[in-house]
């Protein structure tokens, strides 16, 4: 057989070095070629990660047993001998960028599996890689971007279980303090961004703009290098399929944190719309999560008070320790609050303005008397606060500390305003009112923390509005908790009480619960989980929007934004892609046929979305089930898969 020269670029020889000429025959297999190259370079190193890349054809020669002939390589081919794993800058949902080694030769789906394994995110099938939006740049912000480096951490290709340490951190992060810092960044939610940061980022304002992002997904059946991703370029890792399977806070620390971050940014950047009330609740939860993240880890075992027996034991120990009978009985009878406060009842004309009385708070009711001396007599009035609505009316600047109560009574709501003298008094009484409204007494163990959280929220008001500090211990600019729309609509001063109002419902949540609540509310939004594409339906003259969700396809009017029609996957009989004219055709039960071409994204992306969601719904026969990669490719691959 004829011998000919194959020219191969070897990066290790330097960028200027001429291509290596290796004499080969057409029946030489790829493995043999590699051996010859390595011998010829005369460099001693571990070449095991290297493989041949055929740039003209945009393909890897990964099968060592295939002959050059079978691969179609002839003398005119110019190959490149290069490592399969290359560093990649990965933008995470939380906004941080981490540098790590990713596989550039396997299908992106598999590369993501490796990345997620390294980052300790389960269910990699739910994530994918996005090309970053092209920036109209001139700014050299790449220089100042903080980069977390994980390139030193080996990317284990095996499928064995990741070894985790007792605190849930995978062992590979424990190798250096830097890696540990990266793990902290991954597993703890980021402090609230400065309002400017939110303002600077791109916000989609219409459904068409929301569709743009979906044009940037990488194809999961082809490799990174095949898709033109170069070494060290930047990609974004995002949750793509909004169908989060088996979220377990204990083992999904990074997953849960990153999911929360993605949801938070989606809310802040108005990628998903919500009402003002919902925004305030999101803000309150962000504030709360930011605050407890400073002190609490996502996986610490919850306080062991869940067991009544245990609680009783604690009580006993405490009683034995102090062991005075009076103490013990006191701990059994509810503690009380007494003070002179001012009351105002908007509806009763007899009382004009605020009037001072002696107030007693016991169990769940407030009683008031003419004076302290009269307090043993019958109260002027007693109000049971259970089920009432409590709203703050506070202005630190004006030293106004009012508690507004709406107390339900058989014939309506009784409106009452209590005015306190100072922060301290206000915090105590406010906390008591809130607990009582939820049917808890002062004796409840959450009382001290409730008082504390009210005080810290008051501290928020004290902080100078307009300063753009990120979240510190106590103070925070409330503008960093809401989307720019509300930054414009309300001054920080006006926003704080609104957020405070929502905050009272979440202040007692643990970190895990708060994060889950955030995700829950996010998932309950009507537009949750819909990915948009601008399409042209067959037989229609105008552009329309197709929404793809985890259980349905939605046809949306582009102008008005109204849902025109919904098709559920369970009525879908088949779908076809005509790759020549790049048209997707879907048949539903009852002879319903639709076909459309995709305008804002390649039809492969749309095809992959639909197939991906079908795949997601097939998961979960057994909890420990391994990922069925083959099936995923079958459903999403298109013609490459067959």
């Amino acid at each position, binding site marked *: 057989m004829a011998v000919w020269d194959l020219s191969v670029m070897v990066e290790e020889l330097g960028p200027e070095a001429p291509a290596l000429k290796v004499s080969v025959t057409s029946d030489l297999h790829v493995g043999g070629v590699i051996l010859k190259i390595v011998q010829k370079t005369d460099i001693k190193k571990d070449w095991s990660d290297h493989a041949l890349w055929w740039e003209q054809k945009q393909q890897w020669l990964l099968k060592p047993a295939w002959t050059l002939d079978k691969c179609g390589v002839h003398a005119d081919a110019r190959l490149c001998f290069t490592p399969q794993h290359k560093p990649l800058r990965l933008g995470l949902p939380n906004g941080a960028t981490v540098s790590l080694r990713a596989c550039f030769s396997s299908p992106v789906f598999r590369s993501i599996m490796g990345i997620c394994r390294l980052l300790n995110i389960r269910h990699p099938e739910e994530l994918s890689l996005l090309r970053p939006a092209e920036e109209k740049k001139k700014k050299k912000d790449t220089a100042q971007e903080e980069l977390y480096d994980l390139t030193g951490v080996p990317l284990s290709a095996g499928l064995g279980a990741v070894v985790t340490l007792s605190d849930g951190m995978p062992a590979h992060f424990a190798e250096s303090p830097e890696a540990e810092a990266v793990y902290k960044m991954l597993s703890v939610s980021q402090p609230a961004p400065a309002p400017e940061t939110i303002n600077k980022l791109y916000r989609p304002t219409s459904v068409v703009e929301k569709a743009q992002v979906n044009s940037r997904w990488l194809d999961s059946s082809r490799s990174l290098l095949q898709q033109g991703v170069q070494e060290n370029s930047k990609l974004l890792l995002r949750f793509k399929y909004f169908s989060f399977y088996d979220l377990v806070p204990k083992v999904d620390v990074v997953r849960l944190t990153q999911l929360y971050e993605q949801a938070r940014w989606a809310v802040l950047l108005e990628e998903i719309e919500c009402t003002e009330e919902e925004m305030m609740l999101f803000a309150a939860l962000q504030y709360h999560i930011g605050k407890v993240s400073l002190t609490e880890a996502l996986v610490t075992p919850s306080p062991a008070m869940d067991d009544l027996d245990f609680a009783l034991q604690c009580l*006993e120990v405490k009683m034995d320790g102090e062991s005075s009978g009076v103490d013990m009985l006191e701990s059994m009878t509810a503690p009380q609050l007494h003070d002179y406060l001012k009351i105002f009842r908007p509806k009763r004309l007899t009382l004009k303005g605020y009037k001072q009385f002696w107030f007693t708070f016991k169990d769940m009711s407030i009683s008031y008397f003419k004076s302290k001396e009269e307090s043993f007599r019958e109260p002027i009035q007693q109000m049971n606060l259970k089920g009432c609505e409590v709203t703050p009316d506070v202005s630190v600047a004006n030293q106004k500390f009012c508690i507004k109560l709406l107390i339900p009574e058989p*014939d309506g709501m009784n409106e009452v305003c209590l005015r306190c003298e100072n922060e301290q008094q206000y915090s105590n009484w406010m906390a008591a009112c809130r607990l009582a409204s939820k049917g808890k007494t002062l004796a409840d163990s959450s009382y001290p923390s409730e008082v504390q959280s009210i005080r810290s929220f008051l501290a928020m008001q004290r902080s100078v509005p307009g300063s753009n500090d990120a979240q510190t211990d106590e103070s925070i600019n409330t503008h960093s908790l809401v989307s720019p729309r509300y930054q414009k609509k309300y001054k920080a001063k006006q926003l704080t009480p609104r957020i405070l109002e929502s905050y009272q419902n979440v202040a007692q949540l643990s970190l895990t619960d708060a994060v889950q609540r955030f995700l829950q509310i996010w998932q309950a939004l009507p537009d949750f989980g819909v990915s948009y594409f601008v399409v042209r339906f067959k037989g229609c003259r105008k552009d329309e929007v197709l929404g793809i969700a985890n259980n349905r396809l939605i046809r949306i009017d582009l102008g008005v934004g109204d849902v025109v029609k919904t098709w559920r996957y369970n009525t879908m009989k088949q*779908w*076809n892609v*005509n790759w020549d004219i790049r048209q997707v055709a879907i048949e539903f039960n009852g002879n319903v046929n639709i076909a459309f071409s995709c305008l804002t994204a390649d039809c492969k992306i749309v095809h992959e979305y639909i197939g991906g969601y079908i795949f997601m719904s097939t998961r979960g026969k057994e909890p420990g089930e391994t990922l069925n990669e083959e099936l995923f490719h079958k459903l999403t691959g298109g013609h490459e898969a067959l």
Partner: protein
Amino acid sequence: DNDLDALMADLMADLDATEKLAAEKKAAAKDPHPTLENLHLPSPDHASVPAPPLPPAHRASSVPVPTPVPTSAPAPAPSSSTNPPSAENEEQAKADKIKLALEKLKEAKVKKLVVKVEMTNGSSKTLMVDERQTVRDVLDNLFEKTHCDCNVDWCLYETNPELQTERGFEDHENLVEPLSAWTRDSENKVLFREQEDKYAVFKNPQNFYLWKKDKKALKDMKDKDKELLLEENFCGSSIIVPDLEGALYLKEDGKKSWKQRYFLLRASGIYYVPKGKTKTSRDLVSLVNFDNVNVYYAKEYKAKYKAPTDFCFILKHPQIQKESQYIKYLCCDDHRAMTLWVTGIRVAKVSKAPISSPLTPRTRISRGPTAHCVVFSTGSRCTRTTRLTQPLPPPPLMDVLPPPPPDPVMPPPPPLPNKGGLPPPPPPSSVTKNRGGALPPAPVEDFPPPPPLDDGELPPDFMPPPPPAAGVGFYLHGGEALPPPPPDPVGLPLAPPPPGPPPPPPPPPPVGAPAPRPVLPAKREGPAPPKRTTPGLSAPSGGDFMSELMVAMQKKRVQQ
């Protein structure tokens, strides 16, 4: 109760009782007076009988330092501040006693109510309900006392003649609390009756979640698709609220007129579209959130408030019993809209149930038929767990009152309508378990069980029809293509396995057999498919999805 006496006395001695102490004791003991709400008191004796917990307290307080030291435990030193260092046993015994005493005190504080429940035939039953009992518990109790068929539709209904409203209590609610809100002269009633809408959302979820579709499609919905809907909306990480929207009439605050507005239901509340705005989320105005209000059907508001129709509902705080500006009055065009909204709001209220906390482990709900009972009772789980450590002693007034203690020993025998072959479920092993288990039996029979027909229907479904002209195509079969994830076994610590559940269609459908399923080389070397491809999916119902796919592919190839 002698035991309690002794313990009390012991405790007293132990604590070196003082005047103050006695007073406090009395205060503590006063609370336990079963609150004698004047709710249809059954017997005049009732009031005259002093509550049992009271006397011991009196005795204890009148004798300053009683010294009946029980022989069972060595007496602790009178002043407990100096604990004998050696006696660990003593400590233990003392701890036990304190614990017991605390429990008893707690028990004595439990509020109880005597409730008259009106039956469908106009007669009434009187029973005692304590504040820890859920409506479900009370219903089980009533099932025992009556000879009704115990189906899922039985519920407790509250009527308010003054407001002309009525509302079915949810199974997970506590009964005592809402009843305590009634005024003294209230003419409200509690009815025990069958109410179809109680679990309508679980029987026909499509009517609520796909309400926009045309009526015929909804009516012909397959059971499998219904199950899938339940799965999607109730078994995920959050309960999905039906996306209702439409024009309703709202009675304007304090006015007689009704104004039409466009309303939307979201998990976070009811919103309306303000004048001149679109229904984008950011423009919506909140009418009310569901934190503090309940939804009530309102009767004959055309006459009472000049409502446009008689299909009205109101939202109000449960405490409000009379006409008030704090009530939101809404009016729908027709009965269907009213049912949609009221049910939607009920779902929204349930969706706000607290998320995982140590006491209420997050449960993945078992699919299908059982789902409905579990979902609407998320709240009750908490109570049940607590009870495990706190066994219920018989209520103190038991001998005076006709009704037996509320602790049902057995769940009502689950009716097994069309399930002749199925053995009855084994009786739950313990009473506590049983209380948890009391939920599922009722729903069992009423949920449309997968008819045997279903299996018969499968074969045609499974045969891949001739390929479409378009090109290579595998088929997606209706609901089967998207099997709902099975319940997470770990997630169900408290929801007991449904006794005698109508099982989902038997796992290996008979159809699977004829298909030449497994023996297929995984090679795809046949005629290279043309450029256009179709990914496809067939039913994984047989368990092995891949082999189904293979079968389909082979068939395809053969046809080519």
